[in-house]
């Protein structure tokens, strides 16, 4: 189960890659999450171009058999949806930490990053 060291995580099995200047982040779901969900067939982002608070839903991700909500790992403005996923949702399965990223957030409170899990802490959650 791959858990890259340079990313941050949430207990909802999302990963967060904060930009070098700390103003934005990319968000996706972890290798563990995609494996649990199975074949991803559809993503719907409700909150594009909106300000959304940390822990509020920003969209849904659908596998063949299940629908799951996606939650904001940090407060901010949903700047971008990875539109490649519209035609290739399976990238979330095949490359969850790369081509399968889901949204880009403009952070409204970068200090919240410190509340996120690091790789080691997330690994413990997955192991239990």
């Amino acid at each position: 189960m791959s858990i890259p060291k340079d990313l941050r995580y949430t207990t909802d099995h999302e990963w967060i890659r904060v930009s070098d200047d700390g103003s934005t982040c990319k968000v996706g779901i972890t290798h563990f999450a995609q494996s649990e969900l199975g074949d991803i067939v559809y993503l719907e982002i409700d909150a594009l171009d909106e300000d959304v608070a940390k822990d509020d839903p920003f969209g849904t991700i659908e596998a063949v058999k299940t629908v799951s909500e996606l939650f904001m790992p940090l407060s901010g403005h949903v700047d971008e949806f990875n539109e490649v996923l519209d035609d290739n949702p399976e990238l979330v399965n095949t490359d969850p930490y790369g081509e399968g990223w889901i949204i880009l957030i403009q952070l409204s409170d970068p200090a919240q990053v410190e509340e996120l899990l690091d790789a080691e802490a997330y690994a413990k959650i997955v192991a239990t």
Partner: protein
Amino acid sequence: MTEKKAIKIKRTPLFDTHVGLGARMTTFAGFEMPIQYSGIIDEHHAVRNAVGLFDVSHMGEVMVTGPGAFEFVQQLVSNDVTRLIDGKALYTVMCTPQGGVVDDLLVYRLAAQRYLLVINASNIGEDYKWMMSHNPSDAVLENISDQLALIAVQGPRSFDVVQKITDEPLGSLDFYHFMELKPDTFFTCQTAILSHTGYTGERGLEIYCDADRAPAVWNALMEAGAEYNIKPAGLGARDTLRLESGFCLYGNDLGLETNPLEAGLGWLTRLDTGDFIGRDALLKIKETGPARRLVGFVSTERGIPRQGSEIQSEDGKVIGSVTSGSQSPVLSKGIGLGYVLNKPEFTAVGTPVRIASRGRSFLAKVTRPPFHRT
């Protein structure tokens, strides 16, 4: 204080085989079952294009014997059992006196006084009780669910695969026909039935065999199927395959609150030849026409129908609800089944409908299954 009953989760005789193949297991109908191996979509395509192997040993089997066997089955189920000869099976439902569906099942006529009834795993206990209490001809009933394994080999290559492990000529086996093999002629099984049936919409066989011989049969099938890239397939693919074909699933599309006429199963409901439980109620429903009707639909906008979503008319009035929904792996579109008000303006093929849940909706089109052949 109420006493809590511990529910024992059962395993099929192939449990270790599934774990060895790396299956993701889930609890379904009280059994630990494989939901997927390589992935639902991959397994689905394997069945549509080549061949897949399913463990469906959780299904229940009741053996009916004795001089009262025929009369028992005939009054129990809606279809006409006089149509059966030895070696032929039929699909049917058993109903309550009100016409609700107790279960859908297969009836195999092994001999004039010997029938095998194959029922849903989730209903084994209730069905058996129902049968025992509706047995006016004193047929001998035996729940042999734990003694029999059931392996489904499904897909265009299924007959090629099974033919490699038996000398019985399968080419002559018509749809809904089966052969019961002599003891010790098939992997030393005492009971073995090769049946040209399935739940995938593809050509296929279902193999009933002794529970303890199931791993040997499974492994032989995997080996025989290697040249056709046979894949083990789980309950996930079983569900997407049956839904693409438009087959009802008990608990979703059928239940005590639904009758076979509104479910589109009038073709297996004999109303003019002889009595069966629920016939009077069904005759009345047929007279007035059912109030609602099961229809199929395919998404015409992005969105996947899900069980429980509302079905609305194009202008937003609620006309029914989704009973089964999924992404179709073949169409890469949402597909579903659901009950709508039985009016031509809602049930006609091509009617635009709206599928709504959680404040969102998308358009779909009433479509007659099988969806993947449209």
